[in-house]
């Protein structure tokens, strides 16, 4: 088994949002600023790696018909850990991410990876898969957040950017998120189509 392939597949060929089409809610809602996006990536990757680790190590003793509730409980446990950690050490991040921290539980990427990968593969590969998927998830999130923060608030990481440019506030609101992601998907489709033609 090619370990490197398992790690990097999440970045382009099996990108969670752009290709598999999962996890749009946190992607769109949290990408209002770059720092939010990075913290969300960190939190989701932690949960992804943790749940993949535990689920792949108990995969042989979990009865098939009970697996979903068991997986969800494991994921929810890790989410609670993240929730409490952020509340204690990063209260500002905790406030600005708001309900989207408990909502990591229902981030379809995590349950999706548990179903599709961790319950069928070994511990080490599953951890790699978790890290890779986390990076892929974060990459989409960061690109989206950077575009939205620059265009919508004329800031990057909270620092003012181009003096005198009037930001388009709609970009940090919901419509801007939809439009930006649509154009990103369009671009990705165009690149893939061009690759196929060659």
């Amino acid at each position: 088994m090619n370990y490197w392939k398992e790690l990097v597949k999440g970045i382009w060929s099996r990108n969670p949002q752009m290709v598999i089409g999962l996890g749009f809610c946190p992607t769109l809602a949290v990408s209002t600023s770059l720092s939010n996006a990075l913290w969300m990536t960190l939190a989701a990757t932690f949960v992804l790696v943790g749940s993949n680790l535990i689920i792949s190590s108990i995969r042989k003793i979990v009865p098939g018909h009970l697996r979903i509730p068991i997986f969800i409980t494991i994921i929810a446990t890790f989410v609670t850990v993240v929730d409490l950690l952020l509340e204690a050490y990063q209260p500002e991040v905790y406030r600005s991410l708001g309900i989207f921290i408990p909502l990591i539980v229902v981030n379809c990427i995590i349950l999706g990876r548990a179903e599709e990968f961790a319950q069928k593969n070994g511990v080490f590969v599953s951890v790699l898969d978790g890290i890779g998927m986390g990076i892929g998830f974060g990459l989409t999130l960061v690109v989206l957040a950077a575009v939205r923060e620059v265009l919508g608030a004329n800031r990057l990481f909270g620092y003012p950017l181009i003096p005198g440019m009037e930001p388009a506030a709609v970009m940090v609101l919901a419509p801007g998120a939809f439009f930006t992601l649509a154009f990103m998907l369009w671009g990705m489709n165009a690149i893939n189509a061009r690759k196929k033609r060659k």
Partner: protein
Amino acid sequence: MEIKVFVTILLSTIFINNYVLSRMLGLCPFLGVSKKLDSALGMGLAVIFVMTLTSFITYPVYKYVLVPYRVTFLTTIVFILVIAALVQLVEMVIRKVSPALYDALGIFLPLITTNCAVLGVAVLNLSSGFAGPDASLGLLKSVTQGFGGGVGFTLALIIMAGIRERLEIADIPENLKGVPITFITAGLLALAFFGFSGMKI
């Protein structure tokens, strides 16, 4: 004056803070089940039902179990398990009562468990302060918010399904087909719904 509070909650969850188009919750089913109008309607009704029921059950669980025993850190785990059990129940009822609807909804029924709008409304009921120690009529407010959220979700889903049925015959650039054009449509809808945010109730 209590009636006014409930009207406010309803209007704001359906239009102003529409769960899909403004809060961006529940996007997976919004994209997945919005291809046909009738399955969108079925999914919407199931979500309204589950969200109302979830609000009705998670509120007392939080207020009378988690808070008195000081285990509020378990909120996320308990809520998601309650929701999973509820969805299972709804699935069994629908299979018994209406096999046609069960076939139409297919794999999306179990997916209501991981619909973030459902867990979202349970968490939002808490952060809205409905379950606070001195909140009055908290249970009724929570249920209203759950119902309104479900109706808002259904509204967005049905509008989207109606548009997508027409998009089927439209001439769209090859690379925009599928998800990208759906997102552009959703963005335009969100822009339209954004107009409600100036509404005074």
